[in-house]
């Protein structure tokens, strides 16, 4: 877990999208949701920083979006269902994201899933 999301639930490695997280990520998640339309995707791609500023992202959130730092987006309040809209736009799959979050890389992550999924410990 990151500094900004202390693990009050005792569930390590498991981001919980609670009210405080949702509050922190609201503007950024709204941006992600806006990417459902082709028109907004074009506007975003034409000037990503300006688009982020239009949605009122914090500097850290904007940097995470520009860098496609998926883990940082989650830490800064992104909901995976919303973050995924940006990944989809980039042509990235949920398995690609799984590879990023676990540090395994997409191929190994996919292989682990096909082998029955990952287990605790």
């Amino acid at each position, binding site marked *: 877990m990151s500094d900004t999301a202390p693990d009050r639930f005792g*569930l390590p490695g498991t981001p919980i999208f609670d*009210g405080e997280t949702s509050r922190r990520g609201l503007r950024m998640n709204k941006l992600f949701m806006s990417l459902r339309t082709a028109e907004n995707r074009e506007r975003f791609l034409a000037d990503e920083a300006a688009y982020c500023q239009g949605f009122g992202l914090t500097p850290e959130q904007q940097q995470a979006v520009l860098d496609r730092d998926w883990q940082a987006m989650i830490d800064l309040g992104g909901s995976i269902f919303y973050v995924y809209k940006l990944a*989809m736009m980039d042509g990235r799959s949920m398995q690609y*994201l799984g590879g990023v*979050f676990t540090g395994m890389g997409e191929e190994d992550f996919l292989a682990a899933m096909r082998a029955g*999924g990952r287990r605790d410990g």
Partner: protein
Amino acid sequence: MADVIWGLATSHVPSIGAAMDRGKTEDPNWKALFDGYAPARAWLAEHRPDVAIVVYNDHANGIDLDFVPTFGLGTAEQYEVADEGFGRRPVPDVVGHPELALHLVESLVDEEFDLTVFQELHVDHGFTVPLSVWTPDPGDAWPCPVIPLLVNVIQYPQPTAARCYALGQALGRAIRSYPEDLTVGVLGTGGMSHQLAGARAGFINPEFDARWMEQIQTDPAALAALSREELIRQAGAEGIELIMWLVMRGALDDEITKVHSDYFVPASNTAAGIALFDNRGSQPG
């Protein structure tokens, strides 16, 4: 009097819909999943209800985070299929059943369930994938009118498992108190174990899923006793959406007959399950 004739529990992973929409159901990665659906689909095709209720959650398509209802119920005449970003699924829009839906709202609010009533709603894969699991080739229309019942499973605090089960029980009473003779199918969607983000992404728990699959029929009260934290620990951060199966289960009788069930890993990053229950008591099939 309306009667619940069956309950169907099923995952609603978007890639299941995508595999169907792109004709990949015979693909080696998918064939076993769709083969596992076949017996349920065959039985369902023989037992078309007058109305269906789909218990599901939205995924940033029909609603956003400006307002998050714990429970929502749709009373509209029609629900448009949402465009989730790259064109809507090539499936029919959904015809609602306002009369039954309004009856359910009155009964459930009287029973102290604090519903949010929707008259306008776009439905996403959480809703249409279960319809596709049930009816792979709907043609121009789904087999019957459908009522959406939304559950917040995305933003903590989700309703407790116990509250979901209680909602299902009240839903069953509400259906049975409808003055017209109608047959009803109830779909509980989501799950099974999975986690999409965090260092534990990709987590799957087949032992827990097997327990859930068994007890959803035989001992739903035991599942309803699980806390949010325990559900997330056992089923993964997104696996908590299994609580929606409990709404379906609550609407059925104590004694139900399993028609078919199956389990498959992975559908995307998810363990996919299906379980179909006949709720017609001692009646012959």
